[in-house]
């Protein structure tokens, strides 16, 4: 456990001290400022627009962190062999991989927590100045949506970990992770589209079969997008929260454990 935690900690430190993270924070702050200005252009549902923009900014900044820093944290270890320093110590490869995964999750947690709190500012401002009484808003749902952004990023971290465990260079891992993210984000919509339009278009059985496989193989990332609910203060069932959270935990376990199996057999010449 010490080994896993130590790896997680240096991974996190290396990530948080990276200069790119300042860039990401500056982009996020600019977007928050832009949100505050942009909302004045809308008529009534101003809080909705502010929530959309704020939560999208948090999510976007989190994704940038994972794709530019998270992937790179693996990439440097494997491409430049920083990993020698770790696995020449009493740290098993599984411990290394799990520690690395947890370090990246910790990094995305800190980014989401920091930006999640900052993201409330444009919302508070828009609520103060342009609140329309028929609009619904609930801070609880807002922060549940922020937590779900974090869960989504944790799943993306697990995917990055899985791909980094067997690809020979970090760029391939980056591309694969991005593809998995996009597929995971859209399978549910594609599946819904195929289900709702069967009579109108000819859907080949192979296509719907492939979509079905993709739905079960790739994570259903859209299940962790609660921006609409936050924007309109729509209630979320407790059962929804329980099942999606369990799903996330199981999915991450599968991805990381498969990663450790692949990593055990890997050589570092």
């Amino acid at each position, binding site marked *: 456990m*010490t*080994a896993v935690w*130590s*790896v997680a*900690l*240096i991974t996190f*430190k*290396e990530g948080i*001290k*990276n200069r790119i993270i300042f860039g990401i924070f500056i982009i996020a702050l600019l977007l928050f400022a832009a949100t505050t200005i942009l909302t004045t252009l809308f008529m009534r549902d101003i809080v909705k627009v502010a929530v959309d923009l704020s939560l999208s900014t948090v999510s976007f900044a989190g994704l940038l962190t994972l794709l530019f820093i998270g992937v790179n944290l693996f990439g*440097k270890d494997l491409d*430049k*062999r*920083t990993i*020698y*320093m*770790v*696995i*020449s*110590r*009493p*740290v*098993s490869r599984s411990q290394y991989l799990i520690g690395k995964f947890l370090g990246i999750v910790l990094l995305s947690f800190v980014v989401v927590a920091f930006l999640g709190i900052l993201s409330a500012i444009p919302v508070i401002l828009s609520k103060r100045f342009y609140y329309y009484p028929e609009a619904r808003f609930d801070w609880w749902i807002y922060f549940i949506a922020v937590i779900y952004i974090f869960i989504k990023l944790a799943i993306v971290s697990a995917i990055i970990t899985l791909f980094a465990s067997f690809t020979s260079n970090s760029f391939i891992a980056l591309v694969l992770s991005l593809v998995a993210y996009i597929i995971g984000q859209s399978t549910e919509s594609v599946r819904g589209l195929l289900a709702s339009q069967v009579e109108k278009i000819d859907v080949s059985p192979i296509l719907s079969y492939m979509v079905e496989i993709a739905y079960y193989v790739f994570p259903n990332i859209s299940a962790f997008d609660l921006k609409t609910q936050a924007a309109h203060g729509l209630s979320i069932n407790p059962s929804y929260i329980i099942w999606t959270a369990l799903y996330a935990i199981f999915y991450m376990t599968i991805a990381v454990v498969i990663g450790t199996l692949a990593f055990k057999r890997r*050589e*570092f*010449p």
Partner: protein
Amino acid sequence: MAIISFNNITKNYKTGFRKKKTALRDFSLDIHEGEVFGFLGPNGAGKSTAIKLLLNLIFPTTGKAEILGRRVADREIKKLIGYLPENPYFYDYLNPIELLSFAGKTSGMDSLKIRKKTESLLNTVGLWSERKRAIRSYSKGMVQRVGLALALIHDPKVVILDEPMTGLDPIGRKQVIDLILKLKSEGKTVFFSSHILEDIERVCDRIGILVNGRLVRIMDIKSESLTRPLEEIFIEEVEKAGGARE
């Protein structure tokens, strides 16, 4: 008992589809307690391969490697090994204190011991005044010295150094040689590779010459002093083995 032992190891690398390169061929070697063993050979002879096998970074195709009588795959023995990779590269944004703290913790040391050892080691390698700077601002020689400190933080019984002298200026090389002699005086076993002959000659008890993946000669230079210059012997062995590849 042998501290390090290679038993009939062959290591093949895949270099392409159905193509392979043999880095080590039927390689056997025993290194004894308290000895400084120098590993000599032209570039690409397989020195690094042999060292990486000991650290379980790569796996032998056939044969087995053991340290202190235990298989190298056993994670516990790594508490007793200090390793400096060739051209080491560490985390860019961390400073030596953070790196040494990580190394100490994973080797099972408590934080008080880590702090004391960090200070003495960084003084030894001459980086104490630079300890708060991130590694990315370090020169190649400084990185090499951080690597040495990392290899020694947990007071290992066996020290394995891959090309510890490359990239260092004459003063740095002298420091490394003094360090190896100090380790020897503390009763540690040191196994290191180099292609700088005079350095090896100054500190080693025994020398192994590796050419094209084969161990062609082992010399005990402490008990029987050399009759001819080491350079001459080395070149002769390389030519006998058909010259260095490439």
